[in-house]
Structure formats: C-alpha cells, structure tokens
C-alpha cells in the first residue's frame, strides 16, 4: 500500500470511528428521551413524572378489562408482571386490543395512581404463526397446567 493510500485509509477509519463514538455518547446521553414508553416498573420506580404526559407500555392484565355500559369508557390494568397500573380510556380501541396483548398508552398519571389515557396503541409481538399452531400451543399449555393442578390435588 502506498503511503498516500495508507494516509487516506487512516483518515477514513478516523472519520468512521469518530462519528461512531460521538453518536454512541450522544445516544447514551439521550437514552431516556429515546425510550418510546416507560414500563409499569419504571413508573413505579418514579422514572416518569406524574402530572406530565408520557407513554406507558405493558400487557393488558388477564380478566382486568371492564367496559362501562352505554359509553366508550374502558378500564383495565397494564402490567409488566412485576408492577401494575390501572388505566382508564375513552375511545375506539385498535383491533389487536385484547387481554394479554402488549399495548402502549399515552396520557397522564394522577396522584392516586390512575392513568388516564387519550391514545391506546397495540403492540404486536414478533411471533408469526398459523391460527391452528397457536391453538395447539394454547391447548398444550392448558394440558400442562391441568397436569400440574392434578398433581397438586392428589
């Protein structure tokens, strides 16, 4: 390699390394702002400011969805399996909203710990499978649970 090419090679490597380091430091500094949402555990730890609007993501707790009759208001609990936050929302829910589904809510947390959402987005997971396979997995898990229960009863 000629000296001129070596010099240019070093220059290219310095540019790329410099930009990479600067970007890494910049992204680390803005880590909190880059999070699209907080988890209920982060909210419980006081990472999100009460009274300010923020997004919270988690699973809709099983059996927690309650619809007020005659209105579009829905109450449910958002959980990450460690902490839970009750949520109230009035409006149209996305198609994928259901119990056990990952969702992101945007709104405010009041002092009493109730989250009032004005937007609900559904977060679909990274799994893709035919409905028959999903049903078979569900069935297998149910059978396993039943077996554990039967063992406990005997």
């Amino acid at each position, binding site marked *: 390699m000629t000296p001129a*090419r070596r010099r*240019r*090679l070093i*220059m*290219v490597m310095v*540019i*790329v390394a410099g*930009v*990479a380091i600067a*970007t890494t430091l910049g*992204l680390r500094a803005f*880590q909190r702002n*880059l*999070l*699209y*949402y*907080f*988890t209920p555990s982060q909210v419980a730890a006081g990472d999100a400011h009460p009274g300010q609007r923020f997004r919270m*993501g988690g699973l809709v707790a099983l059996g927690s969805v309650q619809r007020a009759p005659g209105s579009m208001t829905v109450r449910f609990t958002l959980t990450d399996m460690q902490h839970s936050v009750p949520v109230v929302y009035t409006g149209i*829910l*996305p*198609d*994928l909203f259901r119990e056990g589904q990952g969702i*992101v809510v945007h709104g405010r947390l009041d002092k009493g710990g109730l989250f009032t959402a004005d*937007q*609900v*987005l*559904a*977060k*679909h*997971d*990274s*799994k*893709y*499978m*035919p*409905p*028959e*396979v*999903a*049903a078979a997995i569900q069935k297998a898990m149910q059978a396993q649970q039943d077996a554990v229960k039967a063992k406990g009863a005997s």
Partner: protein
Amino acid sequence: MFTWFHKLASPPYFYLLAERLVPWFAWASLLIILAGLYGGLWLAPPDYQQGDGFRIIYIHVPSAWMSMFAYAVMAVAAAIGLIWRMKLAHAVSAAAAPLGASFAFLALVTGSLWGKPMWGTYWVWDARLTSELILLFLYVGYIALNQAFEDQRTGDRASAILTLVGSVNLPIIHYSVQWWNTLHQGPTVFVGTGSDIAPGMLVPLLVMIAGFMLYFAAFVMKRIQVEVLRRERNTNWVQELIDKP
C-alpha cells in the same frame, strides 16, 4: 485475484461484463419475486393475530432489508473510492443511492399502511421508525450533494464522506428495537438459533428477499453502466462503443 480486482475496476471491462449479466439477474429476479408473491399471498397461512393483514410483511421486510443493504454497498464503495481513488467505486455509490432511497421509501410507506390497522396509528416517533426515516434523508442528502458540484470528482468525494458518516445509522436501525422500547416489534427472522415465524410463512419471505436482492443487482449494474457512460463520455472506448454498428 488482485489482477482480477483491477480488471473489474476498469470501466470498459465492467461495462461489458454488466452488459452480459444484467438480463440474467433481471429475469431471475422477476421469476423469484413472482414465486415469492405466490407463496406469500396464496400458500402461506394467515397469522393467528393479524389474519391476512400480516401479508404486507412480504413487501415491507424485503424493502427495509434492501434499504440497509444498498447503504452498506454505498459505504464500502465510498471507502474504496476515497482510499484507492477508484473511479468505478464512486459510480457504484451514485448508482445505488436512488435504488436505496426507493427501498427506504417503500419500507416506510408499507410500514405506515401496516401500522394503521394493527397499531392504531400511521406513524410514531419511535427509534426504529425514526432511524429508518433518517436513512431516507441520508440517501436524499447523498443524491443532492453528489450533484451539487460543477466538478464530478469534488462531488464524489464530498458525498462519499457523507456516506461514511451516515453509516453509523445502520447498526442503530438494526439494534433500535433491542436497545430501546419501541412500538415496532423486535426481530423475527433471526432470533438466537431459531426463528419466531412459522416455516410456511418464512420460506416465501426468504424467497422475496432473494428476489429483491437480484432485482437490486440487476438494476444497480444497469445504473452503473449509465453512470460510467456519463462519466467517461469523452474517452476513446465510449466513442468506439458508439461507433460500433
């Protein structure tokens, strides 16, 4: 090996090689994309959660993939062009940029159309979507900068540096769904050892990606030919090529 590399870098040699290869890549890509579409739209089963709506994955994922692949090609070409002052390398970058921009645009549009029914919104400013949008802006910036100078060599060098600076965005796009909470889903195709997508759905997706790769290969070569002709328009070999009956 090294002599072959030097031969490949010579514009007339590359021009004639591309002339022979382009039809093969173009026809192969057409056949493979048609096969992939048939597999994706007819043979693949509907998804357990998203029903038939998930089928947009067969355009969305290959487009997003290619938008990053095209940029990686440009970044390597930019480094070669800057270090070895190879003229063909800059032509490769200039030829790949509009294709990459189209793929990035397609990935953003299909993602947006997919997001409305599934997430409930066309657009959110999460890390994955934002970094992909920055990729589109990088492509547009490259095209603008490359053509902003009277002297082609100045434009090539300036835009090659922009390409290298922008290449830090590639790992950010790729890992954005793991580093930060995003509304966009995490990785599906390569997860540890296995894959989170049923084989009957995965195969058409891989076929589509292969088809998009061949499409890119065919059209980037065709575009390099045009770039080479434009850049070498005052040379003897181009004159001979034109004079040939």
